[in-house]
């Protein structure tokens, strides 16, 4: 039953996502919302890519903002300056980002835990400085403009393009996690020593996950460039890394829905309150982050999942079938005890 409920929920959200621009397109204000939602979905792709290396493989990369920026610039340069076809530039960008990710991963993934986070954060800072100073590459503070093909000039077209790729990325991530390769990634997160002892080449697994993650965040960069139509070096800022991280944490790590809910929801809220609250909105989001981390360590989606299972156990009276690869918290035992 749960399976049908889940599929039904997904279809409902999908239908809403398809219908939304049709409604919003009717008013001038609504058109802005289309753009905000499109960017939200771009961040969702980035959060999904971070989910692969952080959520499933357990390595906290703080360089995903840089890779997203690199993807955006790579795409802009290929499309705008070199003059490659739009849809050909997309896969090339992803491959370039993946290659850079691979090269960065080679040294950085040999460090563990917080050291990896620091290493990647440093890389991000370096990238930002490089893009500020290599004006021949980035256009410097003037930035790099992108002139879209005419069929992409309408907001709602870009919305559907990004929606399509968001769904594609979700499906790819689902396939990876459910395949035989998925458990090896999770094994690295769960118990690295044991993973080594059962023959999993943990460094290789991390490198594969990191490269794949950079491939996907390159895609996010492409659509970031497409929607913004103008890039400045700030596009590679480490602030973006933290945004992606926060979207993922609040939405729910190691889930498929979490990164999307977190990114689209939070990005929309942040934009919504930009005018009225200014920079004070970050105070509120700091509080939300603290609240979520304390009470829903698995994020909003993880929390809903847990509530759902708890409710089923309480009123359904039946054994909860375990969701194959979903994260189970250590307090799993407690739940069974409290059903008096």
């Amino acid at each position, binding site marked *: 039953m749960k399976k049908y409920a889940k599929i039904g929920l997904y279809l409902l959200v999908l239908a809403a996502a398809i219908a939304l621009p049709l409604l919003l397109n009717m008013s001038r204000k609504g058109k802005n919302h289309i753009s905000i939602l499109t960017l939200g979905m771009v961040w969702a792709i980035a959060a999904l890519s971070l989910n692969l290396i952080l959520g499933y493989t357990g390595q906290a990369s703080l360089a995903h903002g840089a890779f997203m920026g690199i993807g955006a610039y790579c795409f802009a340069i290929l499309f705008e300056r070199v003059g490659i076809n739009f849809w050909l530039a997309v896969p090339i960008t992803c491959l370039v980002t993946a290659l850079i990710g691979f090269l960065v991963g080679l040294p950085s993934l040999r460090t563990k835990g917080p050291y990896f986070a620091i290493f990647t954060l440093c890389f991000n800072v370096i990238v930002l400085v490089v893009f500020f100073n290599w004006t021949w590459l980035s256009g410097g503070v003037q930035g790099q403009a992108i002139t879209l093909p005419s069929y992409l000039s309408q907001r709602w077209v870009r919305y559907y393009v990004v929606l399509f790729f968001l769904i594609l990325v979700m499906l790819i991530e689902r396939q990876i996690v459910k*395949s035989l390769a998925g*458990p090896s990634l999770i094994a690295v997160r769960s118990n690295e*020593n044991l993973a080594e002892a059962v*023959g*999993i080449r943990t460094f290789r697994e991390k490198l594969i996950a990191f490269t794949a993650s950079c491939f996907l965040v390159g895609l996010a960069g492409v659509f970031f460039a497409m929607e913004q139509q103008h890039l400045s070096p700030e596009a590679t800022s480490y602030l973006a890394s933290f945004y992606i991280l926060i979207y993922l944490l609040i939405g729910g790590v190691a889930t498929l829905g979490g990164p999307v809910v977190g990114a689209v929801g939070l990005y929309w809220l942040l934009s919504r309150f930009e005018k009225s609250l200014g920079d004070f909105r970050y105070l509120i989001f700091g509080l939300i982050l603290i609240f979520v981390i304390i009470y829903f360590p698995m994020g909003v989606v993880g929390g809903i999942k847990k509530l759902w299972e708890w409710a089923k156990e309480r009123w359904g009276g039946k054994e909860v079938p375990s969701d194959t690869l979903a994260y189970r*918290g250590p307090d799993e035992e407690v739940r069974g005890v409290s059903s008096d």
Partner: protein
Amino acid sequence: MTLLRIEGLTKRFGGLVAINKLDFDIPAGTITAIIGPNGAGKTTLFNVIGGAMRPDEGRVTLDDKDITGWRAHNVAREGISRTFQTTALFEELPTWVNLVIGYRMRTRSGILDGVFHTPRSVRERKDTSQRVLETLAFTGLGDYADKPAGSIPQEAQKRLAIGVALIGRPKLVLLDEPTGGVGLGETDEIISLIEKIRDSGVTACVIEHKMRMIMHLADHIVALNFGVKIADGNPQAVCENPGVIEAYLGECIA
């Protein structure tokens, strides 16, 4: 026939010699027990054989192949798997997924096979689930298949850890206190599991403190004290060895 041969193995931690010029053989198809007081170097020996630590001197050969100083994952792929003294499992994952991970080194499909659902991926998934079912039956963990590994009883966790080590069809399993932390009344299933392992043709090497159990289970015992081998032979001979009695047993039990 010798499966694993240890020659002149030495491991030092600074000034402390944890294992000192150790020589012994593990015959194929047997249960070999490693005994000795705390700090004798038993777990260090497992760490060195299993690749978690590099030895300072000496050689480890498996089936005449030199595996000295290999990384843990390569040792595992070569056919030596192990369990840990403090039961190590992928705790948040269901029992059956723990087994899937244990068998992963025998499959080759990567993430692209998963994304594109290649024939290799399909074939290996089938192979894996077949093997998982076999191992669930072998270890008697069928009832716990869907439960998170961290939530099943301690004794079942011990069997699962053995299952994770066994599922990749090793030649040799190193079991570090397989009944440690389990009540005396609950050890029967683990003991019969270890006997089943030997009967299925896999060589086992066990670190244990429960002497009565070891005397009945082991075909061959190696006794260590302060990193040095003090006895090596069949249970009766080791049990009657004056050095072993002085260092460890106090009196003969068997």
